[in-house]
């Protein structure tokens, strides 16, 4: 198989990819009704982003 071109993403894009994929998977596995799934996915994604960006900001003073 031929080598695929390397994927180059920013920190935020990699983080967003992780958060979206995991939120959707958790939503489908954890909830049955479509409305509940959408609510769960959005809430989970919001918390991922909130915690990720929050921890990033908290580490900023120690980054240099």
């Amino acid at each position, binding site marked *: 198989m031929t080598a695929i071109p*390397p994927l180059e993403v920013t*920190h935020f894009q990699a983080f967003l990819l992780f958060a979206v*994929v*995991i939120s*959707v*998977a958790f939503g489908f*596995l954890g*909830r*049955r009704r479509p409305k509940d799934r959408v609510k769960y996915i959005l809430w989970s994604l919001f918390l991922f982003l909130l915690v990720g960006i929050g921890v990033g900001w908290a580490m900023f003073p120690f980054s240099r």
Partner: protein
Amino acid sequence: MEESSQNTISDGAPSAPRKNDEPFPGESRAVAFGIAGWLLPGLGHALQRMWGRALVVFLAVGLLVFAGASMKGNVFTRQGSDAFDTLGYIADLGTGSFYLFARAIETGGADVSHADGDYGTRLLATAGVLNLLAALHAYEAARGRKA
């Protein structure tokens, strides 16, 4: 549902031994679904006609593996030098057959000297753990313990 099953039990002789020695009817079938889900992400749910979940698990694990390998993440092998390598290998093996896919597309080897490679390693491990969770969900669903 619970009430009716309790009544059924109480209607019979309370001290009589159960006819079925298996702790849960269909246990071996549930185990088979779990193993199928591990080997091919989503298969455990597909066999139970949970099409939406099967598709999402297949795509989620596939996307994470593809992105992780494309970002030159570390696909761990058996020849790990320390405990972290072994843990990484176990996590990567969680993707089942997609582990071979990751090995096949990452022909250039890993490059964790950049942030991309480090993220890729995490995405690969996440794919494995997510697939193990999905396989466990398929097993529990077959036992009737998950919605």
